[in-house]
């Protein structure tokens, strides 16, 4: 099918466009990378050149100054807590909501889904107040719980749609065999939901890992910072110390790049499935 589309494009223009597009897409990262190995003076003289020697000083400095290991751990823990909660609670809720055909079920579902329309900024002030009152702000664990609450609506929506396709006969058979509802869910339903669980993990994992505003509002102490938040740290003090800043930015990107390279097909599929629903 794609060969047919080829007929509609002239080769030389195509090649030019592809090269330009690749260049534009990758140039920023490439420049950040090569310049992170230079000293500031070197950057100033020639931005484009490859570094004369690999100067790891910047990286070590960034590593230590922003407590990289700490922020990395923080971010990983945060994502783990959030994803576990989101997947567990939403799969239960979405499944039961799609199976129970009562009025309450419809009302609850609407209540959950309606918040997908609300932009974050419209609830962030209230969120700050609530988390301060409940004392969940300021810690990674509290933040994780907040993200569960935030991520549940869309996940429930996806689980709800997906669960419709699970044949009822399987449930009936399991119940006849004496399964309790929870056992039924844990052993039969949840494994069947794995495809959509994968999508949800990808979409939410990406969002929570890269999120900036909420962590900035909630986490005030440096030792709790996530990786993205820690990049902000260098900008306050060093307005033009680019060699250090770039090293930090590359360090911050490293986990994401690694995950992307290995799981890329998986990730892209997750995103496209999620978007279409």
């Amino acid at each position: 099918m794609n060969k047919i589309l080829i007929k509609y494009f002239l080769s030389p223009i195509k090649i030019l466009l592809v090269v330009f597009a690749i260049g534009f897409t990758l140039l920023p990262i490439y420049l950040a990378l090569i310049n992170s190995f230079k000293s500031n003076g070197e950057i100033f003289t020639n931005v484009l050149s490859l570094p004369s020697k690999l100067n790891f000083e910047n990286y070590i400095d960034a590593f230590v100054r922003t407590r990289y290991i700490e922020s990395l751990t923080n971010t990983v823990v945060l994502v783990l807590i959030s994803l576990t909660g989101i997947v567990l609670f939403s799969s239960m809720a979405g499944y039961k909501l799609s199976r129970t055909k009562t009025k309450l079920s419809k009302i609850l579902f609407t209540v959950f889904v309606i918040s997908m329309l609300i932009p974050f900024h419209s609830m962030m002030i209230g969120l700050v107040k609530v988390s301060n009152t409940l004392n969940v702000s300021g810690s990674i664990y509290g933040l994780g719980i907040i993200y569960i609450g935030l991520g549940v609506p869309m996940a429930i929506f996806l689980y709800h749609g997906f669960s419709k396709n699970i044949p009822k006969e399987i449930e009936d058979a399991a119940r006849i065999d004496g399964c309790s509802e929870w056992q039924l869910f844990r052993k039969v339903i949840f494994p069947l939901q794995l495809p959509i669980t994968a999508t949800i993990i990808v979409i939410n994992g990406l969002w929570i890992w890269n999120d900036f505003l909420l962590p900035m509002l909630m986490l005030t102490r440096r030792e709790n910072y996530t990786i993205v938040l820690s990049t902000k740290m260098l900008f306050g003090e060093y307005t033009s110390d680019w060699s250090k800043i770039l090293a930090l930015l590359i360090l911050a990107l490293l986990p994401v790049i690694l995950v992307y390279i290995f799981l890329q097909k998986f990730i892209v599929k997750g995103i496209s499935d999620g978007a279409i629903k």
Partner: protein
Amino acid sequence: MKFYNNNKILILFVLPAFILYSTFVLYPAIGGFWYSLTDWNGLNPAYEYVGFSNYSRLLEDKAFINSLIFTTKYTMYMVILQNFIAFCLALLVESVNKGKIVLRTIFFFPNMISMVIGGFIWVFIFTQFFPYIGEFLGIQVLTESWISDTSRSFTSILMVSLWGGVGYLMIIYIAALQSIPKELIEAAQLDGANKGQVILHIIRPLIMNAFTIGIFISLSSSFKVFDQVYAVTGGGPGRATQVISMNIFAEAFGFQYKYGYASAKAVVLFVVILIITSIQLYIMKDKEVEA
């Protein structure tokens, strides 16, 4: 009691999600609306109900009106450019013989990284790389500031947003292109249709669905844009690039903590997005066609 019997298990299964959701989403959202009717400023625990006076103040708040206008302008450019470029990229990727996956991987990459980090990298490009190239090639405009200049800062934000945003839409369009059954195209060609007619009458209606999604996504996300603006211009110079979300943020968490007033702005943002996306979906749903 019938209610209880029918819903017992449902309630149990839904409870954990519902508790967290109502605590951290519902309550803040409704609370936000309530705060917008008060004059609460975060430092002072006592506040008073002031009715809709916050909203009438908004009408005179030049900065807010400007950020509304600016955000709308930004959104219009983004919706058109983002979808157009994403679609072209999708066509490009689909029409290549080999290396589809490589291309797709490359173009989607900027989407994976936080736009704050991406924004910071672009600040480097704007402040160090552009002037360097500009002097080298003699292109004047590159040597001037792209961030602290009022007119160019708009372009720079646009560039960064497009860089980071087209990949996502491209994936959607690729999926749509892949779903066009080739028999239709072949049949049309057998009937003598030329290139243009095939594109216009066969391909376009079948991917309208993807366009609806794409425009919806770019519409709502552009209106809410925050991360890259924060990173690249911080709303400046002055308030030149202060999009709505930054205006609300500055109002609430800047120097004065005017939570009540900022909440009113946040409600307005919500209503605006709701109206615009509803209109958009309504218009476009009509034009879709099932294959």
